[in-house]
């Protein structure tokens, strides 16, 4: 039985943006610096420290992260049960499932995704471009960005259903225009966030019991298999609401 008061959520600002509106009363949440995602090794360390700290007061820790470039692999559920969505990165969380993300990226790999959260924390290609303009002037900054995005064809804004979207839509459209990308909107969903917060933690989640360590294999299998090649003991994949 999950008790909101004994449960803590750890997420970065972008994902938190989607979590806060659905946060059950009494559940605490910890925000981690979004910039960490660019340095997976640092992210891993900061995440483990946050888990250790949260487990002092919580029985269950929910991570608002995906594999995030392997940053969650090797994390240990210190004195708590650790629950992580079985997705590659936060884009799948915004889209509502791993399948939805695969379908989108399979259809057009050259897609750069934007959400309200990403825009809010100022970590978009537009922000990067601004910094380059400051350093090198506009023409050279343009040239650098064009080189970086040469294989990209589409900018997809993920509509996660916030009320005040217009401002962010306009922004996304402006970025698409600036870098000659086709602008499209993709329907987001809070399905994954809701399931993370309220369960059931079925095979769309990795559930590590106290003392267990998360492995890459956990993200591959639909059901955790005993004694897999990564040497990790499995946790039951039954729902625990």
């Amino acid at each position, binding site marked *: 039985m999950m008790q909101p008061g004994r449960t803590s959520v750890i997420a970065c600002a972008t994902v938190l943006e989607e979590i806060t509106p659905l946060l059950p009363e009494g559940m605490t949440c910890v925000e981690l610096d979004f910039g960490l995602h660019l340095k997976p090794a640092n992210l891993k360390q900061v995440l483990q420290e946050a888990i250790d700290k949260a487990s002092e007061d919580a029985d269950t820790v929910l991570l608002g992260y995906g594999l995030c470039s392997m940053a969650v*692999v090797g994390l240990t559920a210190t004195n708590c049960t650790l629950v992580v969505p079985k997705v590659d990165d936060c884009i799948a969380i915004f889209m509502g499932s791993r399948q939805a993300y695969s379908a989108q*990226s*399979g259809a057009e790999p050259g897609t750069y995704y934007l959400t309200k959260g990403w825009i809010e924390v100022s970590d978009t290609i537009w922000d990067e471009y601004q910094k380059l303009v400051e350093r090198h002037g506009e023409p050279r900054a343009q040239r*650098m960005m064009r080189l970086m995005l040469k294989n990209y064809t589409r900018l997809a804004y993920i509509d996660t259903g916030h009320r005040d979207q217009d401002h962010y839509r306009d922004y996304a459209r402006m970025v698409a225009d600036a870098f000659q990308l086709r602008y499209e909107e993709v329907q987001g969903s809070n399905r994954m966030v809701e399931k993370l917060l309220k369960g059931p933690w079925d095979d769309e989640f990795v559930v590590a019991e106290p003392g267990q360590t998360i492995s890459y294999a956990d993200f591959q299998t639909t059901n955790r298999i005993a004694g897999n*090649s990564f040497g990790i003991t499995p946790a039951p994949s039954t729902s625990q609401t």
Partner: protein
Amino acid sequence: MSQELIDAITEMREDDVVAITNQLLDQGVAPTDILMSCKQAMDVIGKRFEEGDAFIPELILAGEMMTSVTDILKPRMAEEATSDKLGKIVIGTVQGDIHDIAKDIVAFMLDLNGFDVTDLGVDVPPEKFVQTVQETGATIVGLSGFLTLAFDPMKDTVTAFKAAGLDDVKIMIGGGQIDENIRQYTGADAYGRDAMAAVDLAKGWV
């Protein structure tokens, strides 16, 4: 070593880089000396990048400048060099992934170190790798990928080579957080942390 060239590269003055390179050649400076200056400049930019002081697009432009310099030098070096190529390599970013900055650097370093490199670009399906190896007779394949979503396509590519009976082709993988676990998962022969590792692996296989 030409400080002028090093400065032009580290200050991202693209046009000057080309002009200075031509000037140096006219003055009779050896292409290998010019390359040494380039390497020095890349070390400076690489260090800045590690320290969080350079942005990715700057890294890409630096790569572009390196390419324009070597494009100028290559015909001259070919005149001097009698050396046969060490071996043939096919490289690309795997299906579903289009991060290519690192792949370009790896391809460039392999080329510089005497390999005949066919670069298939990004989002390359397994069959394309197999087909190209069959056409070129390459003995080594390099797969790059940054997304965790890319690990399965890497595995599929390794499987496709086995299925085509090309068991002798050596496959190396790299990019982002790829490590020994992922190597095992994909069934590749080796993984490399950086472009120099790619060169060392390839040299060990020819």
